[in-house]
């Protein structure tokens, strides 16, 4: 187990090195000249050159990368190009909780909906509920999230007035208010996730339900609910857990549209704004943090397979 963990950590480090290189290469890949971004238009070529020099952009790429990574390892992600040149780390730290909370909340909502739906569908595969769920999930998957978000805002926020919009309340200001503000955007994200989860889990459950051990659990006199939750769910959840890991990583960085619709100060808003202004350090820092989270979440997911299926635990050692 310990050796396994060490191997994992080395893999993680390698992935992070590659990701950080890609992120760092952004400076040279972005069409905008950092010096122009910082100074603004209308300066002489000499002034721009001097600015580039002061920013250390004259150094060779590996040297600059070394500096950047060294700083990043000490927690310093640099300063924004854009006045007031705020600390990238501070801005990311402010935006991350919003996105992370949305993603986690959306995944929880999706699970709460998907697990019972998938169970019912799989238990009576081909039945009325199964076909209805199939049609609805298919429909949901084909609705873009901005449309769903707009519909929710129009219906729940404007027409019915149940939820606020264009406001955010931090967890620090009270959990109730925070959840109240997060509900609609999380629901918007959860919709599509729930549809995907339902489909994947239904398929795996149908396979599991044909196993002999399901019949033998029934033959012991266990109730259908017991069989579904205690016998079928865990062996069927590996694809779902994998998918959740990918979703969590993806959602933290790419809920841009929903954040925009609901005017939320999350990572998506931060990155899009920074990219738009050519604020390279901000983009780099934010992307690096998202990559780190993505890699960590998926490492945890990998380790969880052994929890889910004891046969894998042994195979790894």
């Amino acid at each position, binding site marked *: 187990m310990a050796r396994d963990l060490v191997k994992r950590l080395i893999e993680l480090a390698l992935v992070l090195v590659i990701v950080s290189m890609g992120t760092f290469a952004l400076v040279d890949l972005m069409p905008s000249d950092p010096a122009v971004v910082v100074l603004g238009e209308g300066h002489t070529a000499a002034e721009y050159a001097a600015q580039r020099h002061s920013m250390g952009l004259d150094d060779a790429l590996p040297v600059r990368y070394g500096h950047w990574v060294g700083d990043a390892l000490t927690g310093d992600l640099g300063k924004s190009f854009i006045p007031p040149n705020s600390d990238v780390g501070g801005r990311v730290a402010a935006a991350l909780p919003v996105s992370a909370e949305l993603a986690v909340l959306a995944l929880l909502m999706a699970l709460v909906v998907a697990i019972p739906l998938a169970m019912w569908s799989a238990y009576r595969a081909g039945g009325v509920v199964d076909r209805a769920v199939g049609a609805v999930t298919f429909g949901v998957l084909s609705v873009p999230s901005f449309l769903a978000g707009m519909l929710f805002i129009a219906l729940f926020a404007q027409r019915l007035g149940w939820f606020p919009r264009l406001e955010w309340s931090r967890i620090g200001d009270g959990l109730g208010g925070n959840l109240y503000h997060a509900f609609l955007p999380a629901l918007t994200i959860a919709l599509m996730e729930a549809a995907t989860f339902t489909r994947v889990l239904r398929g795996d459950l149908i396979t599991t339900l044909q196993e002999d051990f399901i019949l033998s659990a029934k033959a012991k*006199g266990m109730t259908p609910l017991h069989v579904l939750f205690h016998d079928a769910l865990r062996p069927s959840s590996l694809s779902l857990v994998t998918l959740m890991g990918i979703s969590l990583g993806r959602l933290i960085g790419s809920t841009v549209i929903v954040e925009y619709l609901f005017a939320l100060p999350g990572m998506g808003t931060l990155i899009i704004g920074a990219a738009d202004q050519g604020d390279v350090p901000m983009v780099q820092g934010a992307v690096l943090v998202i990559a780190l989270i993505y890699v960590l979440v998926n490492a945890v997911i990998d380790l969880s397979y052994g929890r889910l299926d004891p046969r894998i635990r042994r195979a790894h050692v």
Partner: protein
Amino acid sequence: MNDAPLLSVDDLRTEIRTARGPLRAVDGVSFTVRPGEMFGIVGESGSGKSVLGRTVMGLYTSGPAMTVTGKVVLDGTDVHALDDAGRRRLWRSRVGMVFQDPGTALNPVKRVGRHLTEAMRGLSRAAARDRAEELLRLVGIPEPRRRLRQYPHELSGGMRQRVVIAVALAGEPSLLIADEPTTALDVTVQKQILDLLGRLQAELGTAIILISHDLAVVAGRADRVAVMYAGRLAELAPAGELFDSPRHPYTEALLASVPRLGDPPHSVLRTIDGAPPDMAAPPDGCRFAPRCRHASPACAAPPEFAADGARAVACHHPVDLGGA
């Protein structure tokens, strides 16, 4: 021996709906099992013996996938007249099933102990664990306390099948249905498992229905044996009589196809010509007739399953009894 049957099966039919039309897997089967008896059911693959076992137990019942008619009475309870809850109560306490492949009959993510204790009612955690340990000891598993903590994949095939049997015994059933309990096991382990079933029958007085495609498994252990062919019983007789003097041509052919130690080396094994019928469109009349060397025009009508003392045979031209 007690005359009141523990189990009586009367004209049982299981029709499974398939894409190719209804499949009559069990087609009018009747028999009884006495308390404490070892009752063998022998048949080829696809003869409907597993479906029969599951229908008898009520695991297969009328629903969208199949229709069951006829009657199964176990211990005075009409199995197919029960509601779902009643059937679950029956499975928890009166009848247990041993499955063919112990590798798949146990949930890979559950410990052995959990398999045994989860169906127990009204026992404290400690009492349930003690009972589970006792069950493992009963089926001959060494170090039962340690085994309770293990997962199925940490046990050998034979040990797993012992666990499956222990699980089936947890509710102290009066009937155990063992569906090909040794088919997935090594030959040496097969014998151990069959010996275990025999010991349980003797010690606990549990009646056992032993279903197998293998005559050798049933021979010498079953009190009575039913031979199944294409969804129907061909012959039913006390085991000794069946093997000594088969009356149905199918039984005779089946016995002739088993190699014997006394045969000279390199002697050619007798096989049965033809193949079992397509159960979605079985022949009218006797189902074995197309493969039978005694067949006559009379075989176009379905033979009656005629009882003669302790024996019964469904044949228009039964094989003569030992030159009598």
